[in-house]
């Protein structure tokens, strides 16, 4: 009796949860799924049914150049973000509640201001004779053009995307049982060795999650490269925007969008498989060292 009642209440809870999700689901369906399908469909239907949009996409050298550049920039930004975020997240996982809250606050701060505002702030910071330029020249790195260059775009994108790397990393690191490190010490591993052989492998799921999120967000970036970069470093988002906004070529833009979607999906699948492999045997990370 009691068990049935519990199961019933469980089911009704699930029903009410579904009902609660309905508005969000409807929004996603109408404002995301439908446009994506409509845009994709157009890319196969115009100017005539078939794959002509895709053929011309791959035949066009400019699109290929920009696509490759986008992937390279995304990889670069992911790498820089990881290098910056890893020690930061590590520090967060080590510190007490007060310091941790402060560090978390600092990471989340950018989330509370608009992307546009931050990008315009970067324009001010990166301008010639601006703060960053002065700082760089004081350490002997003067003369690096920041506005309208890949360096500037990478700096700004890294700042914007940093939280997306720090949070998954922290989330993983804080769950790592630190007694494992003590165990490694007790068996004679140096602090560094214990970190590399025990901690780093255990943090890999966080690394994978952070890298995927940052990479996927990077390939779709548009505002930052548009405002801070120059057309000579334009990314695929800008090409899509030109096709839609200026040329009204919805089908061509749809084809590029589908391509990006495919790249993202493949990446997520690969990362998912990789993470499952790592999670399946969490102690196998350092096995190839010797």
């Amino acid at each position, binding site marked *: 009796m009691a068990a049935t009642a519990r199961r019933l209440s469980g089911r009704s809870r699930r029903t009410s949860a579904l009902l609660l999700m309905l508005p969000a689901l409807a929004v996603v369906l*109408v404002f995301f799924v439908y446009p994506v399908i409509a845009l994709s469909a157009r890319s196969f239907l115009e100017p005539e049914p078939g794959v002509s949009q895709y053929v011309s996409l791959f035949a066009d050298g*400019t699109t290929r150049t920009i696509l490759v550049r986008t992937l390279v920039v995304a990889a670069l930004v992911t790498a820089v973000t990881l290098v910056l975020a890893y020690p930061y997240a590590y520090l967060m996982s080590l510190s007490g509640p007060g310091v941790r809250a402060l560090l978390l606050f600092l990471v989340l701060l950018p989330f509370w201001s608009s992307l546009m505002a931050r990008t315009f702030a970067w324009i001010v910071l990166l301008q010639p004779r601006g703060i960053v330029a002065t700082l760089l020249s004081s350490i002997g790195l003067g003369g690096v053009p920041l506005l309208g260059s890949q360096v500037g775009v990478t700096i700004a994108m890294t700042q914007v995307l940093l939280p997306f790397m720090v949070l998954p990393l922290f989330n993983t690191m804080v769950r790592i049982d630190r007694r494992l490190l003590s165990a490694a010490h007790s068996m004679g591993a140096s602090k560094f060795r214990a970190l590399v052989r025990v901690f780093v492998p255990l943090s890999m799921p966080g690394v994978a999650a952070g890298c995927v999120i940052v990479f996927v967000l990077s390939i779709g970036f548009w505002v930052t490269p548009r*405002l801070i970069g120059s057309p000579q470093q*334009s990314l695929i988002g800008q090409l899509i925007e030109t096709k*839609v*906004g200026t040329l*009204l070529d919805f089908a061509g833009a*749809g084809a590029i969008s589908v391509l990006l979607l495919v790249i993202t999906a493949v990446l997520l699948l690969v990362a998912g498989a990789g993470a499952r492999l790592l999670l399946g045997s969490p102690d196998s990370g350092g096995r190839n060292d010797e």
Partner: protein
Amino acid sequence: MKEHQVRKTVFAASAVAALLAGCSTTEPSDSSSGAGRLTFVTYGSAFQDAQESSMIKPFEKESGIKVTVESPVDPAKLKVMVESGDPTWDVYLAGQQEVPAYCGKYFEKLDLSNIDKNEFAPGTVEECGVPIDTYSYVIAYNRNKYGNNPPTSIKDFFDTTNFPGVRAMDNNPGEGNLELALIADGVDRKSLYPLDYDRAFKVLDRVKNGAIFWSSGAEQVQIMEQQRADMILVWSGRGYEAVKNGAPYAPVWQDNAYHWASLAIVKGSPNKAAAQKFIDYVVSKEPQTRWAESIAYGAANLTATPKLDEARSDWDSSRAEHRDLSWQIDNAWWGKNQDEVMKRWIAWTAG
């Protein structure tokens, strides 16, 4: 004028937004309210404020027609609106190349019986558009850099030997980058079309290294105030704005590209009669005079008599001396070839 880029910057993901506009036209259409109202879509900011005070408010008072103003214009949204058959915009502020390109497709043919073509610059009044304002795409040079030996024509803009320094121009070739390169190379203004792409890009190559490509009006002002470019092709109104803010630049009117924006009626508009009345009014002498006095854009109606101070007059695209040195883009050619030009431009800048 053509603040396309600003709009684009603010309205990211326009593909999705545009498609949404197509599937969510549940707003009540204006058809029931007849000739008593219309919706005018224009660019925002100071530009819109000036239009409201100099043209729209007086029109409402005079005609009794209620005008709803929206911004910004967005050709992608226009396309979706017309395709869905239920436009919520009636009058559209169109870039000059959009008029012939969209005529009959996204724009209605106009009734020009109340428009005297002689009051406007030749070629600016078209089947689907009447000009409402003008500006020029003009060279501005840094006086601190070239004070003793200032550039005098577009030839000097592309001459980095005698005029070394950083160049800046629009990231959209629609203002005339390719045409200006050809003029600098000695091509006669009358035989610019069809554009000789290879020749134009060869000239543009001379200044490409280190060049800045701006995408918005605000960016032009910022580049001039920070003196990031020694010579910059700018919209005359923005050049004036930067100079007024203290940027040490001066215009070179030789070879300036005379531009305008037009009013068009959105295809399928339920308020065509009111829209036509609105257009007839705002391009007439008085509103045009008030317009030119309230903002650094020129009056499209050449019978307008705005009183301008000297600094403003220096940057006025409608001034007779400046118009004498100007040339105009072939809109009809552009309407047909825009895809090809853009493709080649993107390949040159980004490829």
